[in-house]
């Protein structure tokens, strides 16, 4: 698996906040087609790390390479167009727009980038309906995003990400606040997304991680503590010590 050129790599990637090294010289490779989970205790630097990948944050040092291209200096919006989509840990939807309009912004972006001129209403609606249906929000298209339940806002966030049809979808704690039933549906959804995209999943829910992840990367204090198949990670004493609670 490690032999093929990875879709995403980082080398020496670092980010400090004042004296705090939130991400500390991380070398990371993610092959195309994989579902990778990043786990680690609160404050380990997971969100900061993916923020450096998707361009929300600028690194203090190091490089990010996506699909063979160095994107370290590329602005965030261009990385998104290059195929990196990010869903926020802290729900960030357009509260005063309907769920439909929220997802329409993603679909509109994709249609504009496809160079088809002004996106036609029919194709826009088809794209939005499909994305909403995939996350199970088909019946909520007209609801204002701010009036959706917290769990539904998380799903809307995911719908906005996948409507971009990204090559790499980064999900930052997507199941936070979802019910058990919604989590089961979510696991099925991510499996389906992974058929044509690479998924990088930050997740605290170990059940979700074990169900989905091909490999797991464990972060602690800004560094990668361990990396491997779920069974190996579960058995790793250092990981148990740091994260799984022994």
């Amino acid at each position, binding site marked *: 698996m490690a032999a093929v050129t990875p879709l995403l790599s980082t080398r020496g990637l670092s980010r400090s906040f004042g004296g705090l090294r939130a991400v500390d010289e991380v070398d990371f490779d993610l092959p195309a087609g994989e579902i990778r989970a990043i786990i680690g205790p609160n404050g380990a630097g997971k969100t900061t790390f993916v923020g450096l990948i998707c361009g929300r944050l600028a690194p203090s040092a190091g490089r990010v390479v996506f699909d063979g291209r160095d994107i370290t200096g590329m602005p965030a919006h261009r990385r998104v167009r290059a195929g990196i989509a990010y869903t*926020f840990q802290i729900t960030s939807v357009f509260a005063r727009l309907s769920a439909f309009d929220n997802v329409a912004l993603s679909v509109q972006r994709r249609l504009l980038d496809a160079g088809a001129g002004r996106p036609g209403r029919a194709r826009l609606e088809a794209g939005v309906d499909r994305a909403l249906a995939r996350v199970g929000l088909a019946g909520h298209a007209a609801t204002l995003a701010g009036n959706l339940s917290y769990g539904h806002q998380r799903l809307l966030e995911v719908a906005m990400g996948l409507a971009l049809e990204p090559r790499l979808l980064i999900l930052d704690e997507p199941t936070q606040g979802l019910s058990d039933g919604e989590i089961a549906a979510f696991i099925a959804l991510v499996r389906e997304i992974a058929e044509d995209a690479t998924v990088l999943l930050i997740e605290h829910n170990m059940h979700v991680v074990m169900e989905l992840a091909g490999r797991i990367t464990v972060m602690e204090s800004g560094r990668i503590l361990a990396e491997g198949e779920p069974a190996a990670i579960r058995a790793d004493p250092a990981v148990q010590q740091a994260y799984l609670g022994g």
Partner: protein
Amino acid sequence: MRTDGLARIVALHLGLVLLLLALNWLLPEYHRGVFSRILVLAVFAMGYNVMFGYTGLLSLGHAMFFAAGLYGAGLTVYHLGWPAPAGFAAGLAAGLALALAVGVLALRTTGVAFMIVTLMFAQVIYLLTLYFTTYTRGEEGLVLAPEDRFIALPGAVLDPTDPSTRYLLALALFAAALAATVAIVRAPFGRTLVAIRENEERMRMLGYDVFANKLAAVAVSGVLCAAAGAAYALLFGYVGAGFASIQYSILPLLWVLLGGAATTLGPIVGTLAMFYVVDVTSGYTSAYLLVVGLALILLILYFPRGLVGTLRERWLPWLP
């Protein structure tokens, strides 16, 4: 929204323009003159609304864009003897150039800093109009000769000093600006602006170039305001530094707040309402500005979305 409602939106806006057209023959002379002025100033308010209402950029310096159009047209016609249409084009070009220059610099800031930077730029433009008094005659201003304002068309000459012609020209500009706003608001570009207003960071992470879209909004806004300024110079024949003063930066904000920010009809409604409130109250008391101030405060307290905004919120959600 999914419900398209294009037909009734077009019907409403077209209906308004036709009503205004009929008023050319129905209004008494004094009010027709007032309406001519209001239609031009409403275009100024519409330009302001693109930035403030739809994009969420609160500028305190929009007098500079009105002034760019006013002087762009006024100076070329007065000093260079350009025909009126060329002067109008010069006004638009001046507005566009100024908007791009100010936008590139001011958009590096947000919030209060943005307000202050736009205020300062407008102050610079105002002081420039005074500094070049030799050409602008400062506060006293320039009066354009009637024959310099004629618009020569194949087979006809339009004379803006004729009240009916002036009203119809003002209405033509207003209708064009209204059509442009409706088109923008309903286009992907307009939806992008509103979403940037609502959540800029999310838009960036959906792949939108936030800076470029905001700059485009400033450009559209600047050109609309300049169109109003240029038309004002040519229709009313007066070009003075007063139009570049801070008062003319605050007025479009008040008109838009009163009529309803981020509504296509708010600017005309607000401009009209404000003008007649001032007109009526000043007939009763010399302290009319106090009355106007109080009215505005009450309005913002009880109808923060303005007149058309409240209509949309309560009864007509389909209004663009």
